[in-house]
């Protein structure tokens, strides 16, 4: 079943269109990778689904209903959570409090359970429960951002730049977490610069360039089409 | 007298003083990003210094010079405080400096205490002559402001106003720049205060209190913080607004307050922002 559908979506800032006429469909339970060079409009797409970047035309359907007029708060109640670009943690709040806010849309009872899950995935966070988020290292912040989004028990989890600033071992941990979530039935939309890594886990792929979709298909197809990789993702042979 | 009546001359003189005063704060707050809620203290220091020096028989030139120097020196001291505290903490610290100034002058007998200083000598020029004298300083202040804005110092101020820590990372000695801003801005405020003293010829502590500090900040913000033409325009306008709207009688101050509010509410960029909206220049974006 289609969980999320973007229909001819245009979004942007003021008069500036960051994304034009984007249509895509994400199925329940799959991992969808949004790829493309800097400034392609990946983050804008995610933030528009989350309700923060202005939708200019088109529709965003979640479970079949158009949610484009809903506020960000109503969207999280439907099960959409985001780990945004730049993490955007609450800097003055401690790790623990950041997680509490993550679970704010749920009844209080779920909070403890979900925290356990996050701590199992990212044990590093347990060591620093009372440390303000602003003083965490880059990688720790990334873990907390993912953990915070997981606290909302989302049905659709959007992660912008999964492996940004993470050491190789930590990248593994994060992808492990993503696979784990998938196995729980969570749908995942991810943005990733590490194309190779993304193609390993994704089911579907969309490549954006200058705000437009230039290629869509399954990850298997993408892996089998080196020209495509060459053309759109900018990977050169020697780097891959 | 240039075809102007005594009233027009006194109005233009008052406007001129206000313009110098507002531009002096614009150096600190507009250019360097250091908000001050106690700027009237330096205006007051200038006024008192020149008043007392000239009353002691010294020529007005010495009075003005003394005002500039003393206000600037005290400004540097307060500038040192700005190195410790930032943003809103700085705003409130400077506000405290303003209250301290008033509190101290009230009790200091040799500056007249509560009674203030009256019988301050006039410039020795005619009313029109003094107006031209003030306008000369206005012109110099404007030229200096424009020059500063275009110099590398103004460029560095921009960086400090935006992000002090990053300014250090590109090698700027932020402390010295901030001190320089305070020294220049407060010295100019001292000049404005001295001119005020010789114009009104009576000063008392209350004339340099919190209300005056707020008024001058309002001039800067309503003009469009950092914009030289905007601040000039706003200072000239706000300084005579109470005289202009006399016919509103009882509703005068209500109107004044309402205008301050409405200006910020509907044109947060001040007059400079308003002008930009009316005459838009080309907008900047990624050229791709």
């Amino acid at each position: 079943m289609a969980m999320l559908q973007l229909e001819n979506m245009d979004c942007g800032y003021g008069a500036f269109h960051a994304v034009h006429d984007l249509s895509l469909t994400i199925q329940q339970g799959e991992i969808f990778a949004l790829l493309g060079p800097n400034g392609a409009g990946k983050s804008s797409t995610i933030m528009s689904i989350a309700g923060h970047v202005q939708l200019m035309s088109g529709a965003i359907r979640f479970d079949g209903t158009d949610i484009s007029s809903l506020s960000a708060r109503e969207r999280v109640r439907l099960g959409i959570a985001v780990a945004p670009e730049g993490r955007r943690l609450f800097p003055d709040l401690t790790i623990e409090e950041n997680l509490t806010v993550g679970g704010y849309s749920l009844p209080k009872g779920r909070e403890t359970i979900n925290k356990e899950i996050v701590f199992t995935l990212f044990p590093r966070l347990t060591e620093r429960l009372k440390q303000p988020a602003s003083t965490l290292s880059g990688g720790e912040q990334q873990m907390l951002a993912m953990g915070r989004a997981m606290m909302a028990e989302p049905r659709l989890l959007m992660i912008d730049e999964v492996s940004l600033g993470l050491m190789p071992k930590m990248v593994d941990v994060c992808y492990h977490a993503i696979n784990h979530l998938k196995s729980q039935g969570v749908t995942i939309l991810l943005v990733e610069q590490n194309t190779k890594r993304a193609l390993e886990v994704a089911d579907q792929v969309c490549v954006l360039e200058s705000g437009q979709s230039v290629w869509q298909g399954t990850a298997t197809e993408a892996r089998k089409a080196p020209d495509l990789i060459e053309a759109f993702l900018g990977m050169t042979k020697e780097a891959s | 007298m240039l075809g102007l009546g005594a009233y027009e001359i006194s109005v233009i003189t008052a406007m001129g003083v206000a313009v110098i005063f507002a531009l002096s704060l614009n150096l600190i707050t507009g250019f360097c990003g250091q908000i001050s809620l106690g700027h009237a203290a330096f205006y007051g220091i200038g006024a008192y210094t020149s008043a007392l020096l000239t009353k002691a028989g010294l020529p007005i030139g010495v009075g003005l010079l003394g005002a500039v120097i003393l206000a600037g020196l005290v400004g540097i001291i307060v500038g040192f405080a700005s190195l410790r505290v930032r943003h809103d903490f700085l705003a409130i610290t400077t506000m405290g400096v303003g209250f301290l100034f008033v509190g101290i002058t009230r009790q200091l007998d040799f500056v007249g205490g509560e009674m203030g200083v009256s019988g301050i000598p006039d410039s020795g020029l005619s009313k029109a002559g003094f107006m031209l004298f003030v306008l000369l300083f206005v012109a110099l202040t404007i030229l200096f402001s424009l020059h500063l804005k275009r110099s590398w110092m103004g460029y560095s101020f921009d960086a400090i106003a935006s992000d002090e820590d990053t300014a250090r990372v590109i090698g700027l000695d932020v402390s010295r720049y901030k001190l320089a801003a305070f020294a220049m801005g407060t010295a100019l405020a001292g000049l404005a205060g001295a001119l005020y003293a010789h114009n009104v010829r009576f000063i008392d502590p209350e004339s340099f209190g919190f209300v005056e500090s707020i008024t001058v900040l309002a001039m800067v913000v309503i003009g469009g913080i950092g914009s030289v033409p905007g601040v000039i325009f706003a200072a000239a306008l706000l300084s005579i607004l109470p005289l202009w709207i006399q016919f509103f009688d009882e509703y005068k101050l209500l109107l004044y307050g309402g205008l301050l509010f409405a200006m910020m509410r509907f044109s947060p960029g001040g007059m400079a922002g308003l002008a930009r909206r009316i005459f838009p220049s080309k907008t900047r974006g990624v050229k791709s």
Partner: protein
Amino acid sequence: MLYVELLAQGLVQGSIYALVAVGLTLVYGLLRILHVAHAGLFTLGGYVGVLVTNATGSLLLALLVAMVTVGIVGMAIYRLCYQPILDKPPYVALIASIGLFIAMEEVYRLVFGPYGISFENPPLQDVVQMFGVTLRLGEVATAAGTLLLVGALAVFSGKTRFGTAWRATVTDPDMAESFGIDIIKVRYLNFFIGSAFAASAGVMVALLNNMVEPTMGSVPSYKALAIIVLGGLGDVRGTLLAALALGVIEAFGTIYLGKFLDRDAIAFAFLILVLMVRPQGLFGRA
């Protein structure tokens, strides 16, 4: 004994400061606005308090009416005045707020007259003796009420889930919303509580002076700013302690330093001294 009495007087004055300043802290904490017009709401509270008491004879009712109406006016001010300029630099809101404050004072003068109004039968004028200190009932009620209200608020904002949500809204409203926090509600509630506190202070001051005047808010308009800075900006407990400390400093200062510095100058001299040693305020985090 004299010292104890001075201390008591200082604490009473401090608790009035606290009631006004806590509202300001809430607004500052949430929106980073130096909300000078807050002092105008304090005055409005005083007017409503006196008018309702004179009409009904009940101070308690008057207090309640003042808190609710002023709370609502506070929300309206947020909606009409601040919300549209939230994304602008802070001094924009500061000047707007000052303009609003001037206009409010003038409205009070035009509507209620320049001389101010008083209680026909001032309540709580009896004198009580406690621990050898003589206080008016009104003063005792002020101090006790403040501790109760501000204490409850401190617990609420520090310990509860809603308090955490409130603090999250402070730094990143968009993200807070993305996790289900109703930021509009948080802000309205914030203005309501802050303004209601100011109103209660207004009523108590009206009672202690038996007078409200249009310019009653002029001292709180800047002193409350000093207090929230002293308290570390945005922290309820810090504000309470700073307000009490300032009240006590002023009480002793008026007697022993009054010849050299006026009350405001004493307060600000203290503030500057503190900030030079602790730039983040008495109770602020570095």
